[in-house]
């Protein structure tokens, strides 16, 4: 190896050797380097070893590309309502519908839409009175009474039916509001009679149309979310390798 011996001229010349090899020095510096090389053996050796290194690098041969790196793009599809651009309206539409649903549900839970408070809670306000693990003739103190308002009440009722649970009774909210609750005998199928009665009561106010609106908005949110997912998948199908 060729160590710099600290001579400032050697240092300066060695800093220019690379450019000297590439023949890119101006005439003034070129003659300076050449004069110094004639006098300095260490710098001459440095030049030769660097020149040899560059020559070795020039011998590195290029290799052919192992495969083609061409790119492909998917054939342009006819833009449909569910194309990527539909995300522009799908997102705000979903947000609006979701907000409307939340407002409606909150109003429903707070009974803000009742035109006759305490009377009309619609068919969904269910009170399930269930004698858990007890025979239908069980005393009243072993019964559990759960009040589930609105759509949730209907869902609970449907679930109870679906799982085959029959040991319950559905009563209207006006019955529940009475101070002394009578023990209710569990009669399978009784809820249909009571429910029909409530339906008649609910139709007089805003209850049943409100439920329908809530269910409709909920379904709309689900559909819109599904459309957004579909549109996003369409968008991610982009440019690919050939």
């Amino acid at each position: 190896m060729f160590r710099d011996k600290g001579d400032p001229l050697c240092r300066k010349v060695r800093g220019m050797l690379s450019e000297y090899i590439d023949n890119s020095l101006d005439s003034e510096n070129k003659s300076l380097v050449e004069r110094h090389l004639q006098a300095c053996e260490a710098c001459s050796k440095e030049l030769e070893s660097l020149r040899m290194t560059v020559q070795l690098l020039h011998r590195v041969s290029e290799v052919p590309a192992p495969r083609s790196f061409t790119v492909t793009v998917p054939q342009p599809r006819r833009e449909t309502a569910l194309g990527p651009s539909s995300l522009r309206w799908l997102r705000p539409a979903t947000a609006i519908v979701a907000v409307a649903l939340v407002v409606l549900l909150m109003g429903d839970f707070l009974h803000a839409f009742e035109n006759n408070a305490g009377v009309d809670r619609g068919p969904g306000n269910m009170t399930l009175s269930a004698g858990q693990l007890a025979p239908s003739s069980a005393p009243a103190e072993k019964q559990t009474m759960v009040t589930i308002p609105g759509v949730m009440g209907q869902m609970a009722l449907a679930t109870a039916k679906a799982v085959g649970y029959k040991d319950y009774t559905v009563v209207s909210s006006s019955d529940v509001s009475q101070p002394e609750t009578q023990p209710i005998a569990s009669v399978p199928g009784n809820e249909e009679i009571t429910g029909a009665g409530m339906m008649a009561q609910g139709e007089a106010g805003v209850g049943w149309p409100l439920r329908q609106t809530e269910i409709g908005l909920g379904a709309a949110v689900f559909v819109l979310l599904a459309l957004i997912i579909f549109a996003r998948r369409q968008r991610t199908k982009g440019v690919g390798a050939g």
Partner: protein
Amino acid sequence: MDEQELISRSKDGDVEAFNLLVEQYQRLVYNLALRMLGNAEAAEDASQDTFLSAYKAMGKFRGGSFKSWVLRIAANSCHDKQRVARRYRVVSLDTLLLETDDFPQANNTESPEDYALRRELGRFLNEGLAHLPEDQRLVVILSDVQGLSYEEVAQVTGSSLGTVKSRLNRGRTRLRDFLLQREELLPSKFRLNK
């Protein structure tokens, strides 16, 4: 169709025109990636990334040398690959470089002995390049292996001409020192101190 027309059509989204540019430059890009990364598989990935990025960014190409522009994207792809490899320490670059066997027999006139010597030399040079810092390695490869001018190297690296000269000088000196330290392993034909 000349290059300017191909570039113009590619900017308008003509993928066939762009692929003609790919065919023109893929060898250059692949070889840069191979020398930078020292691994054929990683070089293939980096080359593919380069052309995908170039196609997506064609709208941003503001003229000048397309070769320098695409090599700059390639250099960035290699940098990203090296950063990921360093982070996860999958395999060391030295190991990768020793695996590289990219010195095909040049022509029919080359004797088997000469081919073996050249292959041995190639292995040494790859190992030496791997020992250079990334910025110096890039400049040495672009200038001495791929034959770019100082101005082109400056465009590819986004550096000044002075920086390019300085990195090239330091890179060559460092590589020379590496080869000198292992001179007894070099074929006598290629020894620096004869």
